[in-house]
């Protein structure tokens, strides 16, 4: 009877975990998968494999990145994650005494929570699974085999091999703990002789389990605000403008990043002039952020620059974002956009480098293979052709402090650039330049393509005329605040 319960209970638990994990990632957290996928570029080349496995933990790293590339297709990514969770549960169940089968759920739950730390790389769960798998297949009689197995296992899966040592010590008795000394010696030898360019700390604790070197996973779980920002970036990446506006109405995170995403979505729906101040505005950085040295903050700004026709700035923000990935991985998303910027600017030889890289990937290769490095081909692509019409015709130095003027010049360059007009007027409002706003409102009327002047702009004008005495309009409220600030 107990055997039957154990057998079917374990299977039922596996089924539950697989369904739960699949739904969790596919339905609730596809943006988390997108986030992971965009900070690596898995290449189907032997060089890439060799580069990974030439460091301790390299096989787990390679396998982790191999799986993460499939996050590009959300259901497939969720399925692979579900299988990984089930593997962890089944292996744990196999190592536990049968009557404790229910405890096999514990590592799965722990891992689930740990993966809420967005910088935990999939190489960590992969290494854990491999360590447990090794413990399952190793013969229990001959502990001396571990003398040979441990250094190899360390090289393939990294310091998670200590988990294997612990499991083996439990299986074979504490006399087996001699392997701990041997492992320590092996790691120190690797550090001294084979890893001249890595710190001891990482040699001992893992080179590729965590995205930030010399830092470690936090038990923070799934921080709501942080994942909201990740969701916004995911929606921007997939141009789901309506979803962004809808979501912004339900939950807001008071950061410039959030404002950038929402304003970009509003501009794409041509709602910026009407609804901008219905939502949180972080200040002068609410449309585009200044240069920030991290791997996420500049992404929505880069997307806005791209759509505005500020191609050089889009390329710069994408380039610096990619170089801010502290484990020195490439980003498929960034590399593709950098290549597109180079194509629009006619820098074909430099673009070829990026394209060659993308051609070796799975999900970016079809686009890269379709590209022809010629003006004729670029001009035949509607988006690229449009951007060539929109970009600056004059050459001058970018100035973040004068972003309103940058947008204004961009609009003057091409008065069909309605997004530039919207951003120009919005930036003046954000800066509190109400005089400038008044001055250029005529341009908005003439070139904006509105059936009637947007209500938000009307409210601001009324507010200026009535010296702030307009009730119930978020635009007027903001303008009033800025007027107050100027008087002070």
């Amino acid at each position, binding site marked *: 009877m107990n055997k039957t319960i154990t057998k079917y209970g374990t299977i039922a638990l596996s089924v539950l975990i697989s369904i739960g994990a699949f739904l969790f990632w596919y339905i609730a957290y596809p943006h988390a998968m997108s986030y992971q996928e965009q900070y690596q570029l898995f290449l189907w080349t032997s060089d890439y494999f060799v580069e990974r*496995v030439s460091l301790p933990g390299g096989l787990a790293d390679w396998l982790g990145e191999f799986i993460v590339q499939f996050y590009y297709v959300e259901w497939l990514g969720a399925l692979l994650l579900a299988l990984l969770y089930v593997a962890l549960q089944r292996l744990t169940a196999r190592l536990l005494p049968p009557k404790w089968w229910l405890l096999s759920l514990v590592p799965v739950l722990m891992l689930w929570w740990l993966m809420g730390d967005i910088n935990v790389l999939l190489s960590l769960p992969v290494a854990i699974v491999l360590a447990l798998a090794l413990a399952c297949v190793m013969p229990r009689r001959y502990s001396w085999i571990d003398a040979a197995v441990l250094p190899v296992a360390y090289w393939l899966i990294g310091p998670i091999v200590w988990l294997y040592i612990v499991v083996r010590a439990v299986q074979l008795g504490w006399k087996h703990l001699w392997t701990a000394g041997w492992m320590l010696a092996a790691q120190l030898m690797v550090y001294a002789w084979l890893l001249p360019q890595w710190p001891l700390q990482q040699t001992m604790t893992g080179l590729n389990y965590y995205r930030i070197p010399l830092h470690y996973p936090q038990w923070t779980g799934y921080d709501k605000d942080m994942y909201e920002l990740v969701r916004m970036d995911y929606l921007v990446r997939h141009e789901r403008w309506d979803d962004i506006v809808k979501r912004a109405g339900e939950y807001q995170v008071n950061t410039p990043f959030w404002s950038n995403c929402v304003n970009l979505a509003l501009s794409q729906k041509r709602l910026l002039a009407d609804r901008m101040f219905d939502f949180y505005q972080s200040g002068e950085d609410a449309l585009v952020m200044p240069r920030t040295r991290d791997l996420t903050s500049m992404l929505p700004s880069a997307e806005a620059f791209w759509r505005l026709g500020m191609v050089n700035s889009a390329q710069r923000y994408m380039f610096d974002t990619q170089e801010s990935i502290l484990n020195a991985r490439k980003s498929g998303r960034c590399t593709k956009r950098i290549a597109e910027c180079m194509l629009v600017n006619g*820098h074909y030889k430099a673009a070829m480098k990026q394209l060659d890289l993308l051609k070796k990937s799975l999900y970016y290769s079809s686009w890269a293979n379709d590209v022809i490095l010629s003006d004729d081909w670029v001009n035949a692509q509607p988006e690229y052709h449009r951007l060539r019409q929109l970009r600056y015709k004059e050459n001058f130095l970018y100035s973040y402090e004068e972003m309103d003027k940058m947008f204004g010049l961009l609009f003057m360059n091409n008065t069909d650039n309605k997004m530039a007009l919207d951003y120009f007027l919005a930036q003046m409002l954000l800066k509190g330049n109400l005089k400038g706003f008044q001055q250029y409102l005529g341009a908005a009327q003439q070139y904006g393509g509105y059936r009637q002047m947007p209500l938000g702009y009307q409210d601001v004008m009324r507010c200026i005329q009535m010296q702030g005495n307009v009730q119930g309009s978020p635009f007027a409220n903001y303008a009033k605040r800025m007027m107050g600030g100027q008087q002070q």
Partner: protein
Amino acid sequence: MNKIESWLIGAVCWLMASCASTPEQVSKVNQLPDIYPDYIGVTIPADIAPLNFNLADEDIDCMDVVARGSKGGELHTNGDWADFDIADWQALTQQNRGGKITLTVCVEKDGQWTQYNDFDIFVSPDNLDEWGLTYRRIKPGYEVGGDIGIYQRNLSNFDETAILAETVVPGRCFNCHTANCTNPNRITLQMRGEGGGTMIQKEGKQAWVETKTDSTKAAGSYSYWHPQGDYVAMAVNSVHQSFFTGIGQRIEVYHKFSNVEVLDTRTNELILSPLLQTEDLEIFPAFSHDGKWLYYSTSKPCKVPAEYEKVKCSLCRIGFDAEKGQFGLQVDTLLNGPATDKSYVLARPSYDGHWLMYCVSSRGNFPVSQDDADLWLMDMKTGKIRALTEVNSLQCEAYHNWSDNSRWFVFSSKREDGMYTKLYLACIDEQGRVSKPFLLPQRNPRKYYQEQMDAYNVPDFTKTKVEFDAHEAYRQVFDNNREQVKIK
């Protein structure tokens, strides 16, 4: 690339099948082969790695190359690209010092063999007499350095090893590694940011010092050793970047202030001169071969970035007495920037005292960001100057340095794609005749350079392999315990 990676790549390459057919029914065409890199007519030292090359056309089936020396010897290679055996190549070049090697290239495409006109590679009578090169590899990005590394490359083969990689000091920016007249017994480098400082290594022992004092505005950089090995000249400055909106030059690099000082590495005292601590911007110091002069560039202060086009550097020199550790009392202007509407930067005197090589551009004091930067040469015996048209291109040439025997120089150029700087070597004879430069050889040059996503900068020759303990550098950086230099 570490040893393990090299071995693994070698094994994979060996396993990969390549073509091995021999030329039959060859038809001749009256044209030179279009090869990458362009090694046609270049002059090389006998002690250089094989000049392997690919055919520009990537769709060939096979390539058969015969190399015959004018003084005897013959070499044959057959495969996907011209891949010469290192030992055989060097036996051939040594046998033909002062002569030439004639290469016959046959190519199989679509089952048909074609033979091109022969071309020559000239072997200089002057050896390089250097172990290799050191250089920094950095992404050609904007404000985030990313995965920076200082590397050394054995010039008699293709081995490259890291001297200091980002992995061991994550998140840090380091630069300006400098050896004393190519002798790596004395090297210095600077590290920026948290834990930053100036590293001075003498005979293998690292000393990390803080070179910013109350009397000087910043830490030293752009260093250059005095030939006696006790003093290091440095520029003290604040470097910034601005970004263009046009499709030409991407970045303007400028300095808001800059002065020149000399550090006595025996006492850790700074030697200052009022002539080098002016309101003008003194930058890029370099000692003459005998150590009696210090060359540098200077420009009038401008309101940068707005007045970036007005930055015009003159090339100057000031006397230096190594015995007393004192500067002279007079500055000589060798080339007047404002008067000629040019900018003269990055003076590098040859170690035999015959030549002075420098960059000329239309503006600026950071030539590697200037598209029109070219190399020029001054004969120090006659004062005659000329543009090095033999090595210049339409793109930027900069970061030149001499071999110890002053017969060879290395420089970086963006000629291939306008973005990714690569290293070229050229020779100069007693009369100042300069050969056609050749791209730094690689085992499979097209694959290597197409996949290389780094730009090369600050190259220099090194007499022997650099011995540097990166683990010790990690300890020093994270201990952040710096000796404060004093003013003499």
